[in-house]
């Protein structure tokens, strides 16, 4: 499965250097994001998702991942972006948070990158407050910037909804 591939490549990279962190990269609205590889359980293609009535707009629905129910989170509205048009099929990254599985629906998932700590920077203060909330920091890559998603904050719906 995709996960085992991810894990083995991650191990290989770790041997190369302890100074690097490995991230699964993904794209939303052409912006590159990264999630620490160890938090990722699975990478999924388009799935059959059950709609959940009355759920918050960020909740795309739920899906069955090998007998476990996964709550699908649409990352776009969470980041204040417009929802993807239904024609485009997205991909998703499955992460575990608080004992529950969540799938983060994004536009596409890229390769696993091993990034040196030296390239890491804190969020620039000019970043949109919403993004600052969910970004754990920025990596300078050669030709683009990678935003590290803070999965815990992204999935913690209780923090700013007041209930």
């Amino acid at each position: 499965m995709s996960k085992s591939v991810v894990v083995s490549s991650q191990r290989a990279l770790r041997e190369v250097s302890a100074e690097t962190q490995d991230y699964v990269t993904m794209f939303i609205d052409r912006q590159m994001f990264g999630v620490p590889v160890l938090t990722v359980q699975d990478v999924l293609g388009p799935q059959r998702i059950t709609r959940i009535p009355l759920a918050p707009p960020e909740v795309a629905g739920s899906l069955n991942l090998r007998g476990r129910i996964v709550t699908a989170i649409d990352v776009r509205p969470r980041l204040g972006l417009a929802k993807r048009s239904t024609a485009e099929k997205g991909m998703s990254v499955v992460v575990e948070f608080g004992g529950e599985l969540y799938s983060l629906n994004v536009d596409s998932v890229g390769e696993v990158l091993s990034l040196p700590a030296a390239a890491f920077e804190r969020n620039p203060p000019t970043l949109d407050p919403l993004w600052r909330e969910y970004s754990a920091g920025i990596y300078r890559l050669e030709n683009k910037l990678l935003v590290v998603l803070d999965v815990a904050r992204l999935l913690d719906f209780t923090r700013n909804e007041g209930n």
Partner: protein
Amino acid sequence: MDDLLSEFLTETSESLSTLDVELVKLEQNPNDPRILQNIFRLVHTIKGTCGFLGLPRLEVVAHAAENVLGKFRDGELEVTPAAVTLILTSIDRIKLILSHLEQTESEPEGNDEELIAALNAMAEGRAEPAAPAASQAEETDGIDEAEAAPDEAPAVEDVAPFDEPEPAPPAVAPAPPAPVEEPAKPQKKAVPAAPAATAPAETAGGGESSVAQQSIRVNVELLENLMTLVSELVLTRNQLLQMVRGKDDSEFATPLQRLSHITTDLQEGVMKTRMQPIGNAWAKLPRIVRDLSVETHKKIDLQMIGAETELDRQVLELIKDPLTHMVRNSADHGIEGPDERRAHGKPETGKIVLNAYHEGGHIIIEISDDGRGLNINRIRAKIISNGLATEAELDAMNDQQIAQFIFKPGFSTAEKVTSVSGRGVGMDVVRTNIEKIGGTIELKSVQGRGSTFTIKIPLTLAIVSALIVECGGERFAIPQISVLELVRVTTTSEHSIEVINNAPVLRLRDRLLPLVSLRNLLELGGEEDERGETFIVVTQVGNYTFGIIVDRVFDTEEIVVKPVAPILRHITMFSGNTILGDGSVIMILDPNGIAGATGEVAMAAGSGQIAGKEAVRDARAGERTSLLVFRTGGQDLKAVPLALVARLEEIDLTTVEHSHGKPVVQYRGHLMPLISIDPYYQMQSEGSQPVLVFSDRERSMGLVVDEIVDIVDEHLKVQLAVNQPGLIGTAVVASKATDLIDAGYYLTQAYSDWFGSLDEDTYGEEDHAKRVLLVDDSPFFLNLLTPLLSVAGYEVTSVESADRALALRDGGDDFDIIVSDIEMPGMSGFDFAEAVRREGRWQATPMVALSSHATEKDFERGREVGFNDYVAKFDRDALLQTLAQTLADAKGAA
């Protein structure tokens, strides 16, 4: 064999095998205090349990051995091989007695004097290899076994009321003689003066304990995991069955059939491991009823039928409290005093009958009494005075319908609440608890003849049978237990949906059935089916029957209920989700939630259930706080925010002790001081006393109250501020003037260092507690939050306006974090944040906004002006979490 005894045997034989190993270890490391401690503890436990079970012979041996071990532990005796041998001999003797106990359920006859004497001699430090002959003479504390023995069997009987009718009289005890000891074991030397040899009456049943072998102890978690796995297996089986359905010639058909059977058997088997007799939940009831009958001078006979009926332990745990509460109600309010009963021509002794039995995948529990029944007139009066319904509405109801109001939140007919269950107040809690586990409760009451509650609950929570329906292109599961019938409605059928001012209804057998459109309720969108055919699922919640309009009905399926993700828990329409046979995820509808949303005077909606989004919004905008209302020292009503109360307890006053002249009780292994609001309050010396428990980590404080009146959700407005320590002010709660108690004041009375010492606990490595500046214009909130934050280990400074806060800044005060309200007269929270960020020493201090209107827009605005985070008022946990988080972030950034 009696449960208690067999459990004791299992446990003791486990301890004994550990002991053997530990003792040998001790011989090798005679000075290891850890091993000694462990051995001592094991023997001590055996001794204690023997005493409890009435096994004198065992107890005496264990006691003597414990004495010696105690000396070892205190260093008064040296651990010599001879001493260890002696202990091992005692252990062997204990084993011997145990094996006999296991066969005949009574201790063998016989005499341990010389062994005990040897142990005592050892303990006294005399004659090390203690010649038993010499010590035989002194029977100092050796109990005369001949006398003790005849009492033994009855003693065991006493604790074993459900014993099988084969009590072996001690006379029969000498069973087939067997080798008394396996001499080898860990001893290397011959036993000096082997006491066993001089115990001719000893019998042994073949060494190893067979009961111990028949049952093993298994971690509950392991069983839970097994249950989960089996549930998954059932799902997979269903999935396979679905695939071959309709393919009669499939080669998989036969093996699948077998798999299906095995799965079913396995499911039943695993379920059995979790089953416990309901009698376990009833065990306390006779005592409670007895105490109540003494207290109220009534004569009550409690009959329990079907105590052996088994149900899932998870369910059992959940119904324990409701059952206790209901029996207590029956005894307290239902049964009349003897005089009254005689006057009505009833026998003096009232009867409460508990009856449990299985019925088609459910367990039915009936609680009936032959007391006075519900007083419908009083209930009517109460309904009207509490504003639960109008007189006109009540006139349209029959007595049974009116009686159902006792399940409504905030209802209690007894003028005086005489007992508090410790978990909640009143029948609404009972009902909520039972409905939480998918059960139903019904009430029948005849005035003067008594009342009967019938509880119907599923045997297990894990697997339920559900009806699968479709609406708006989505499928949903409805638990079968709530479904009464299905009605198909087409344009031509005799049934058709009629509409009264947008409210759909259905004529069904001369009754008008209120209908709920699932499409509208769940905002599914889409148009009604063009085929002109819809289905109505007639659903019952308690006594409220209504119909759910759906597009299509599929079959029923066994489903495994899984809880929904935390972010969806606020949607009351769903009780869980599951995976169907075809692998798709499906939401399980909660009939209670739907009933609540229909706006029916809904007895269905529990206090905590809020129907739909609208209500949630209203509740937020209305700034409601849950308050616990109570009385103490007089008739004045007093209240304290429920969030601050950890538990409601009832304390047996005979257990109250005094320390430094102040009353304390032992509570959960700690001493809990009891504080009363009236300093001159005299507590009774017996009976029971309701107490509000305030807890923080391991400390608890009990606030003594006379009675707990109610729990209300109230829009709080402090009308009169008072200048009296311990009081925040007076507010109108449930339309009565009520004093609001400052819990923080009493906490400091209980422990003068309550706040101070916690600082150390919480921030051991830091040199000071985190200082919080609290800015809020409402004195009530300052008073509410200050103790809350203080208890959490913060040092709190509170001011009522942004101007004052800024004055503190200019005065040179520093804080670790600032918590500020947004809506304030004068300078608003936003302006305040801007001012702080603009200049001065607080520029880098993290700020958290506090408001009752937490919308996305406010959140963004808060960010812009410099707040680090945003918390809704009244959310104690979120506030504490946010504070900790923000402080950690700030520290990380620094």
